[in-house]
């Protein structure tokens, strides 16, 4: 297939050999592969909501095994692996030096793949801890800690040898990701298992981990990616670096306290609930700092979205980020939580954060990076556009059906005259919409994977072009 280079996929030859990028390639291609595999699991789960007997007699495909595999596979197999791969790409370039150790990076990638394969087999086999987002058996969780230390050492050592004193905001966010992940992951996977940590205390720690897995792992990683690729993909300077730093430090201060808002009206202290609500509302400060910065950066450049696949994903992700971070503070309020807590609203919210926001940002990075590290052009711009629209349409179908269904579910649960089983039957139509939306999203995943793998595999067969003259704003 003849491919014309465009702004989104133009290979840049000059200076590229400075970076080896083997680690980036291994992480990104692995992540894309796992995205597709776990997407199948997601479809099976969505089908089970509509047809509860579907594959119900096969133990490996029961809901109790499929759901942890879907959650952990998407979080660690796809999204975190993609963010790590992009971090290995971004940090050396922002620091003006090579990655501290390519060998250590490759070893980290190999270990990460061992972890994901171990997780697949153990979760399918029913070996899990039964804690939200922390289902992985302890030996596998220990391997995650080791891999994270290897990743952290490599990134921090690269930053320590940087050419420039002042660091760009993406570097700050990635440093935050590494440090926050360390204590968040240890809390959720190990502190919850300590003697005496049971009942409400364990639930409180689990929600601290679960919420901060999104807020202090995927949020800073996703924002680091966006802060790097929005200016690079649009060839436009960031609106304000000062504002980005205010956003970073306010996120660092605010986010950690918000997890308990999942236990509003639960058996925890009122002061803890109130603190979680106050800090959840305060989240609007860093969120607005980020969103305003991204939107202001594209002032006068919105026309680039028409033919720039990375920007399409990035700016759609930004809109979803605004929506999901408006949702979060609102449903942490006691009056709203009384309706939506534990309903389908919550998975709708979680999917908009992890898929709509941070996966969109990661896919934008992958679409930008893969042609460059393989020194080629993207296999197909048309397929990339198709994948974007499938993700967008499927995602909107899933998010809105779950929000509306969740509200409806909550109103029914608040009416003691309605038997619980009737509220389950009533939602079947909502779950059908989710299943159909899932098929659309999965089609997007397949096109994304095919396009990226074809770009990598066919790299040697396509022509590379010299870098055109550049202009700066």
């Amino acid at each position, binding site marked *: 297939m003849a491919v014309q*280079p465009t*702004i989104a996929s*133009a290979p*840049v030859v*000059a*200076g*590229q050999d*400075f*970076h080896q990028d083997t680690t980036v390639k291994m992480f990104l291609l692995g992540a894309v592969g796992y995205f597709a595999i776990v997407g199948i699991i997601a479809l099976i789960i969505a089908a089970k909501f509509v047809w509860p007997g579907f594959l119900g007699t096969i133990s490996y495909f029961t809901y109790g095994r499929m759901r942890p595999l879907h959650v952990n596979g998407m979080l660690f197999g796809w999204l975190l692996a993609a963010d790590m791969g992009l971090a290995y790409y971004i940090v050396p*370039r*922002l620091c*003006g030096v090579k990655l501290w150790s390519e060998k250590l990076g490759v070893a980290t990638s190999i270990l990460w793949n061992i972890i994901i394969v171990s997780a697949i087999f153990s979760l399918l086999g029913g070996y899990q801890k039964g804690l939200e987002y922390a289902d992985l058996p302890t030996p596998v969780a220990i391997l995650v800690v080791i891999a994270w230390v290897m990743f952290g050492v490599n990134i921090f050592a690269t930053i320590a040898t940087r050419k*420039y*004193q*002042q*660091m*760009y*905001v*993406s570097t700050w966010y990635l440093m935050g990701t590494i440090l926050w992940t360390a204590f968040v992951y240890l809390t959720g996977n190990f502190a919850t298992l300590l003697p005496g940590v049971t009942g409400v205390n364990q639930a409180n720690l689990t929600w601290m981990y679960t919420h901060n897995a999104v807020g202090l792992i995927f949020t800073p990683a996703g924002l680091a990616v966006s802060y*790097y690729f929005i*200016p*690079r*993909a649009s*060839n*436009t*300077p*960031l609106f*304000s*670096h*000062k504002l980005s*730093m205010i956003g970073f*430090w306010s996120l660092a*201060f605010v986010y950690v306290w918000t997890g308990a808002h999942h236990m509003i009206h639960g058996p925890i*202290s*009122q*002061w803890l609930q109130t*603190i979680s609500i106050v800090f959840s509302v305060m989240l609007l400060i860093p969120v607005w700092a980020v969103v305003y910065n991204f939107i202001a950066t594209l002032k*006068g*450049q919105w*026309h*680039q979205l028409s033919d*720039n696949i990375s920007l399409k994903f990035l700016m759609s992700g930004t809109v979803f980020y605004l929506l999901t971070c408006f949702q979060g503070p609102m449903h942490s309020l006691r009056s709203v939580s009384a309706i939506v807590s534990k309903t389908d609203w919550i998975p709708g919210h979680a999917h908009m954060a992890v898929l709509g926001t941070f996966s969109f940002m990661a896919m934008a990075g992958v679409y930008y990076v893969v042609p*460059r590290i393989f020194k080629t052009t993207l296999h197909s711009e048309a397929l990339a556009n198709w994948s974007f629209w499938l993700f967008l349409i499927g995602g909107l179908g899933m998010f809105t059906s779950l929000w509306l269904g969740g509200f409806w579910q909550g109103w029914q649960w608040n009416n003691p005259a309605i038997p619980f089983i009737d509220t389950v039957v009533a939602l079947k139509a909502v779950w059908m919409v989710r299943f159909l939306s899932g098929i659309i999203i999965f089609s997007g995943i397949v096109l994304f994977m095919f396009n990226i793998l074809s770009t990598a595999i066919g790299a040697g067969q396509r022509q590379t072009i010299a*870098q*055109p*003259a*550049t*202009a*700066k*704003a």
Partner: protein
Amino acid sequence: MNDATYVSVYFSYFLFFLLACGAIFFFVRSLKDGYLGSDSEEPKYRMLHDDEGDLPTHPRRMS
């Protein structure tokens, strides 16, 4: 004993204290390193010039 003096609450007070200390430390450090001064916008221009070179300027992009 009430909610504000319950024993486990003091742990939260301690965490708040640590965070406040960290915030003050990094605020002062940021001031010293120029993140909030006249040079604060320098990194956003430099990142467009990293060793990858630049993307071709879009024909419709305003310069």
